[in-house]
């Protein structure tokens, strides 16, 4: 399923330099989130991601990583601290940030094409150019021939691909992904991960991906942020030295396994819940 | 896109329906050419042979002759007919004697100006083979009722004949013919208080009944016509015209049954599915409308109204000191005018129709 990195004829998503900040920057400073009822989900988290990086956030269930992502997305308000995207403070959902969730959340009354065209439709820019782009993106994610199929007739993996195409319709510099492929089977998941990487390369956007699978986190990223169980703090930040493009075979390397171990130790912090077994994601050979 | 179409369809239907619900009523064929006056009259039934004068007057052109285009406003018996007069929904209303008395007792000004039925439509019956000969025989027995309202009529009848109402058990049986027949047959009830129409229907279908309604009670008018004084003043001409046409038609029924049957079969075919019932119902209707004095059809008679009021008092519906002045409740000033037409001419018109 891997195709050559350069594709011709597909427009690159937008990305003018944001005023007062470099393209695709996420800056989180001392972020704190406490819910009503006293639950402290995020406890003074600080990190940065810049131009074109792929950063994974890995942590056990309930550690606040999804909450952190939602804070950056502007879906929930900060209790304390600062979060800025592209140099602008985050107060509400933004047009320059694209989100992808576990559930593809396609509208069942729209075809794959029409679902992909939802962003331009909402922003009033659904024209011929947008439609052409949608066709191209669907082809890019491997759904050629299914443009006019309805979600009911698409498998979970295919639906996520439509969601991915929808994501790419929005010309952005920042991608936030919350365990986007958690709901599909292992094999499909691996395939989708690599498609994601391929797409990311072409887009040169900054991506932040949340997962509880350590192998996946390291495999996809340039940098891995390891979080402790709740309340979420950063336990460790691991640089991934492997060259792009990453390939499945990397997992067998000793260096890779050392990173996995390091991450695993970081997670131990105070009692580990259901972090995926570090060896589970490894397919040797 | 299809969604948009569906939404438009639904919206169109809804708007149309709202328009229909609020729009002008054009339900009945209230004829009326230019120049004829409209009058809304309320009956306790849909068009029926029971009130044959309405059908006959229409068919033989009497309404037209009198320059009236009447509009029927039917409403079930349970609905207060006097209320329609109060609301102005109807100009005149064929109500119950009781209803009118009660309305006046509460301060209303409803007046009875015409009463076509000089016999009561309500009564009490027993199976033909019953031992009970008259109403005194009902003491200690169980009596079926048409509805809860029938209780006071039963009590009044019992009191008037010196029977203690407390000795009688009652049960509401309703108006379903087969059910009445069954409960009488099985001996679950020994007598039934209800409507004359139900009695005749049962009789016509093989259930022999004997009417033991006391004379006094049987003489009370069935459905007198009530009107408010203001309306009478404003629409006097139309009301008189309406009643003249009505009395002509009522007279036709008394002298030419055939024509009335012809018209009834034509206008209300549904009532003739059971031939025996249809015939019996027509006979009953004509019988009920037999006038005490043929020259004064529809006369209002003070003595039977007084009896009716006494009945209400003895049944405890109104107190002795709440009684109204019967003479004020009745107005027979129109009766003569209403009856002032050529009987022979009317007979001729009827014969021409059937011929």
């Amino acid at each position, binding site marked *: 399923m891997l195709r050559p990195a350069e594709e011709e004829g597909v427009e690159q998503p937008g990305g003018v330099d944001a005023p007062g900040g470099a393209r695709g920057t996420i800056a989180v400073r001392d972020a704190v989130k406490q819910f009503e009822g006293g639950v402290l989900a995020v406890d003074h988290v600080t990190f940065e991601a810049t131009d074109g990086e792929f950063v994974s956030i890995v942590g056990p269930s309930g550690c606040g990583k999804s909450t952190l992502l939602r804070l950056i997305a502007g879906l929930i308000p900060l209790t304390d601290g600062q979060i800025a995207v592209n140099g602008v403070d985050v107060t509400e959902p933004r047009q320059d940030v694209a989100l992808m969730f576990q559930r593809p959340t396609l509208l069942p009354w729209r075809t794959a094409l029409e679902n992909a065209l939802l962003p331009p439709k909402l922003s009033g820019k659904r024209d011929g150019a947008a439609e052409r782009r949608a066709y191209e993106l669907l082809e890019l994610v491997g759904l050629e021939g*299914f443009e006019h199929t309805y979600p009911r007739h698409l498998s979970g993996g295919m639906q996520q691909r439509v969601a991915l195409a929808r994501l790419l319709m*929005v010309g952005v510099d920042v991608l936030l992904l919350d365990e986007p492929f958690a709901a599909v089977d292992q094999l499909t998941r691996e395939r989708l991960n690599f498609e994601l990487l391929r797409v990311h390369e072409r887009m040169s956007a900054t991506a932040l991906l949340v997962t509880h699978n350590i192998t996946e986190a390291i495999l996809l990223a340039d940098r891995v942020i390891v979080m402790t169980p709740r309340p979420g703090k950063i336990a460790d930040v691991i640089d991934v030295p492997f060259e792009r493009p990453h390939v499945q075979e990397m997992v067998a390397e000793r260096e890779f396994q050392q990173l996995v171990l390091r991450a695993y130790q970081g997670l131990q912090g105070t009692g580990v819940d259901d972090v995926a077994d570090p060896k589970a994601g490894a397919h040797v050979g | 896109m*299809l969604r948009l179409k569906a939404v438009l369809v639904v919206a169109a239907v809804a708007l149309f*329906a709202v328009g229909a619900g609020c729009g002008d009523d054009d339900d009945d064929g209230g004829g009326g050419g230019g120049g004829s006056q409209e009058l809304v009259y309320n009956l306790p039934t849909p068009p029926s042979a029971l009130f044959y004068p309405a059908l006959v007057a229409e068919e033989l052109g009497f309404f037209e002759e009198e320059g009236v285009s009447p509009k029927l406003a039917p409403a079930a018996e349970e609905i*207060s007919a006097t209320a329609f007069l109060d609301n102005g*929904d109807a100009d005149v209303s064929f109500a119950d004697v009781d209803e009118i008395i009660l309305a006046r007792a509460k301060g209303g000004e409803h007046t009875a100006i015409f009463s076509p039925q000089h016999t009561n439509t309500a009564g009490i019956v027993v199976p033909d083979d019953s031992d009970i000969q008259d109403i005194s025989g009902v003491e200690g027995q169980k009596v079926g009722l048409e509805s809860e309202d029938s209780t006071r009529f039963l009590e009044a009848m019992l009191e008037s004949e010196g029977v203690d109402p407390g000795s009688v058990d009652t049960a509401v049986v309703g108006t379903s013919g087969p059910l009445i027949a069954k409960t009488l047959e099985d001996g679950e009830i020994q007598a039934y208080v209800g409507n004359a129409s139900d009695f005749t229907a049962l009789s016509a279908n093989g259930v022999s009944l004997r009417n033991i309604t006391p004379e006094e009670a049987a003489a009370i008018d069935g459905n007198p016509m009530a009107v408010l004084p203001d309306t009478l003043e404003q629409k006097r001409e139309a009301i008189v015209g309406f009643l003249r046409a009505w009395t002509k038609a009522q007279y036709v029924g008394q002298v030419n049954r055939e024509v009335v049957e012809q018209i009834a079969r034509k206008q209300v075919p549904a009532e003739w*599915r059971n031939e025996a019932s249809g015939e019996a119902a027509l006979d009953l209707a004509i019988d009920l409308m037999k006038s005490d004095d043929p020259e004064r059809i529809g006369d209002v008679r003070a003595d039977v109204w007084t009896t009716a009021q006494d009945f209400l008092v003895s049944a405890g519906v109104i107190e002795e000191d709440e009684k109204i002045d019967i003479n004020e409740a009745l107005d027979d000033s129109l009766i003569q005018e209403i009856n002032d037409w050529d009987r022979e001419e009317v007979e001729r018109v009827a014969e021409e129709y059937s011929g």
Partner: protein
Amino acid sequence: MSAKVAHALSPSRLARRLWPPLLFLVLLVGLWELALAVDYVSESILPHPKDIVVSFYELVIEESFIWDDVAATLWESVAGFGLGAALGLALAIPSGLSPVMRQMLGPYAVALQVTPRIAIAPLIIAWAGFGYNSKIWIAAIIAFFPVYVNALTGILTVDEDAREMFRSLGASRWQMFTHLMVPGSLPVLFAGLKTAAGLALVGAVVGEFISAERGLGVLVQQFSSQLAIADAFAVILMLMFLGLLLYGAMEWLERTTVFWLHDGRLVARSRRRAARARKKSGEAPLKQRPVGA
């Protein structure tokens, strides 16, 4: 297209769809005759099925007056349904979007539902007159509640994830309403509409009992009072057919509008769109890939 219709009406297909209800009917008639035979119920209260069928035939084919009544009751039902549904929707939308409105209207909607119609009949007649309108309003009142409740439920139970997705795309409240809430609540709404269609018919008949010159409710009363019981049941049979007709119409409308719950419709739509798209781009129509991957 005609091939599709021909397929739907093919004898084998029809037979397959009809035999279950027919079998049930046979069983029902069997039990019925049995009950009459052992005198469990009297013939004068429940006629033989055969007598009912004969009456039905006579009324429908030989006499013709029943059609005026059918037309009257049908009109009252349809108009009443339309009115009640329109009101239900009109009140459900603000209730769904505003908790204050919901609390304000809720108790009254319930009160309206449980009030016996005969109690408020004089009010309705005073307001709507003696003609068709009073029947239409009574039917509307009865049809109102299921539509109100279902539309409200549909709006309140919108997919939270979808709502979040819309928010993340910067959708306005109006867009959220038209593009998410409205289509998302259609399945539940149609369940309510189907219920309301049948209830509107009941309401029209109840209205006729209260005050009417013609209609199937009037006919039932006329036949009952003269002890033409088989005829009365024949009218009830006719009412049953009308009910099925109204329900069927709603089902058809649902299949068209809420197409995404029906596989066949989805496949048809996919095909049509693909063909249209190819035509637009000037290429020969290409089949969409078979579904499922």
